């Protein structure tokens, strides 16, 4: 008897819940998207920052009218590893009923998550992973707002050709360039893209292309002695860790005089460790990265300036610190999704895709200076996703290029004698 009563109570309360859920859903006029981030495990640190960037931008979007006239809401999934990314994507689609998924911070996760979304024809909106294969699979439902690893090589050569060569009083095709890189897929991806563009677009003279295993290279002297004889103007070096400090220190010992060194990414020369290890002895290398000290908000279009200030303010209020790179990737990526949804007025794939392809926004329009022009493969164009060149100056990485977006200026062009860079 009591068991029957219990069953009746359970059934009634289930109906009541369902009814309540239906009513609240109808009342609020929410539009829910799926957000996949690594919130536990080794990537959790950055995954949480990325999610913070999304949440802060979501609130700013809702203050500005939401998406398609509805309040934007998230259904969050924890994508610890590729397997979890795929299963969480499935859960968000089947249980939460989302038609759009965004995420995932990491290059190890975006492939699996977007595959899972594709199988159910759900839109996948990536805002940070840089794996070049992501946009090369011919998937019609997959879009990426950030450039990929090859885009870093593209920007490095852009900087060398457009900003450095004339300051050496040389034409780009007179420049001798040596490529040196650690041999991971990241290092090779960036380096090969840079080699291709240096030769193909600008006719630069490649004097060397050398790969090494960063974990077992204890001495760069033989490479430096060799490069020294080849006398390059530019050293394009993608480093991973200790190798940046070791190469720089030993280049100084060997008095290897090149005119500039260019790196890309947050490892090696891009790591704060480089400055800690060398202080003013580390003056000079250029690092392609997210904007840092010197970044000038006034360089942005007026509407982006307001949003940038509100975003930075909200991040500071929430975390007590300036926005990190992960925040700066997530924020504008989500804002862009709002622009697409507002113009498509639907999440139906064909119309959504049409709206994505018709976007044509100049550089400087989004909060970190990005513009938008998507290619057929769903990849935002290198030229529009503005990246920044930073330079080590007395233990600090200062934003130096493009000059319209920064108060900092590149120094030591060409680098000059090792002990004169103070």
């Amino acid at each position, binding site marked *: 008897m009591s068991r029957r009563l219990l069953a009746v109570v359970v059934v009634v309360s289930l109906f009541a819940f369902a009814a309540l859920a239906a009513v609240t859903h109808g009342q609020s006029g929410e539009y829910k998207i799926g957000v996949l981030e690594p919130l536990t495990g080794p990537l959790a640190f950055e995954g949480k920052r990325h999610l913070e960037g999304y949440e802060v931008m979501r609130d700013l979007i809702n203050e500005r009218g939401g998406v398609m006239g509805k309040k934007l809401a998230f259904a969050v999934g924890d994508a610890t590893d590729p397997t979890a990314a795929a299963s969480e994507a499935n859960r968000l689609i089947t249980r939460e009923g989302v038609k759009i998924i965004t995420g995932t911070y990491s290059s190890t996760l975006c492939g699996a998550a977007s595959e899972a979304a594709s199988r159910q024809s759900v839109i996948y909106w990536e805002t940070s992973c840089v794996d070049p294969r992501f946009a090369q699979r011919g998937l019609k439902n997959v879009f990426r707002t950030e450039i990929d690893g090859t885009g870093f090589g593209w920007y490095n050569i852009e900087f060398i050709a457009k900003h450095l060569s004339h300051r050496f009083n040389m034409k780009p095709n007179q420049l001798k360039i040596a490529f040196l890189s650690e*041999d991971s897929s990241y290092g090779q991806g960036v380096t090969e893209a840079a080699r291709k563009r240096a030769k193909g677009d600008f006719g630069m003279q490649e*004097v*060397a292309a*050398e*790969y*090494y*295993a960063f*974990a*077992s*290279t*204890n*001495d760069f*002297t*033989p*490479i430096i*002695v*060799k490069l020294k*004889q*080849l006398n390059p103007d530019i050293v394009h070096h993608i480093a991973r*860790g*200790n190798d940046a*400090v*070791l190469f720089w*220190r*030993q280049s*100084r*010992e*060997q*008095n290897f005089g090149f005119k500039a060194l260019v790196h890309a990414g947050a490892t090696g020369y891009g*790591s704060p*460790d480089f400055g*800690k*290890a060398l202080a003013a*002895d580390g003056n000079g290398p250029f690092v392609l990265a997210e904007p840092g000290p010197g970044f000038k908000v006034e360089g942005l279009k007026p509407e982006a300036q307001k949003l940038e200030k509100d975003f930075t303010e909200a991040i500071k209020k929430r975390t007590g610190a300036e926005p990190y790179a992960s925040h700066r990737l997530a924020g504008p990526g989500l804002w862009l999704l709002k622009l697409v949804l507002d113009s498509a007025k639907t999440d139906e794939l064909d119309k959504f895709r049409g709206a994505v392809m018709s976007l044509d926004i100049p550089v400087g329009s989004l909060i970190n200076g990005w513009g938008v022009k998507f290619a057929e493969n769903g990849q935002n164009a290198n030229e529009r996703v503005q990246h920044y060149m930073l330079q080590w100056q007395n233990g600090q990485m200062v934003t130096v290029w493009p000059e319209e977006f920064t108060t900092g200026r590149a120094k030591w062009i060409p680098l000059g004698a090792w002990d004169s860079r103070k």
Partner: protein
Amino acid sequence: MDPARRLGFPQIDVLAQLGVSTILLGGIYALIAVGLTLIFGIMRVVNFAHGEFLMLGMYLAFWAWHLWRIDPYVVLPLGAAIFFVVGLVVYLLVMKGVIHASHNVQIFTTVGLSTLLENVALVAWTGDFRFVRPWHSSVVLRLGATAFNLSQVVAFAIAVALTIGLFAFMRWTHTGRVMRATAQDRDAATLMGIDTDRIYRITFAMGIAAVGVAGVLVSPLYSVYPQAGLQFVLLAYVVVVLGGLGDMVGALLGSLIVAGVEVVGSYFFGSAWKEVLYFLLFIGVLVFRPAGLFGQRGAENLGV
């Protein structure tokens, strides 16, 4: 085609610099290898945690520098004493129990110890790269067209001194002779009244003290982080096998050979080839001279 071949045969100053680099890099490898060859040769224990003791030596130098600005060279004698004690403690707690066990058990134990130490360092000091920057780490000496880093020259000099010292110790002191006797035949040594347990204890402590010293000495040259030992330890095994197990002078010469292959290979063929080259050498030595380049025939079984 590798650009070095376009350069043709190197000029004399390039050859001189490659020679200098070989000697200095070889010095660093020798520092790390002598402790390993001691433990390997006498106890016949493959100490997979060797690199982690190197890492701990580097951290000792880092903290002394970071907290009190003490130069690594001042830390050196203290470091040798500390690591001797560390070696004794680790022997009593860990190695003593497995010294008579099979090689598999010893390998599992030292691999476990290696992972344990690495992760303790990771938890205690995080994975950040740390740096020791005493004045001598940025002093460059120039002789003709060649350049030397002062810290590296000192490391090389101490490596040579350490090798000669250990060689003399093994050759001419009573304890050294007893250690060699134990290595040759443990049972016979016991029958002659030698306390083999004491000998193993001293050997292990000496080996760990040597690698601790090596860690302190390389700290101005390389970044300090929990996996720092891995960067060198594989090379140290190659060196020990090349030089012959337990052979101090062999370890020094083996180090110079490995460094030479690395430097010359990187210059002429590109650095991607250097590991191919010295592992070819490694396999070649194992096949044709299993006792090592300088070891006596049959020494692979005796450990002398």
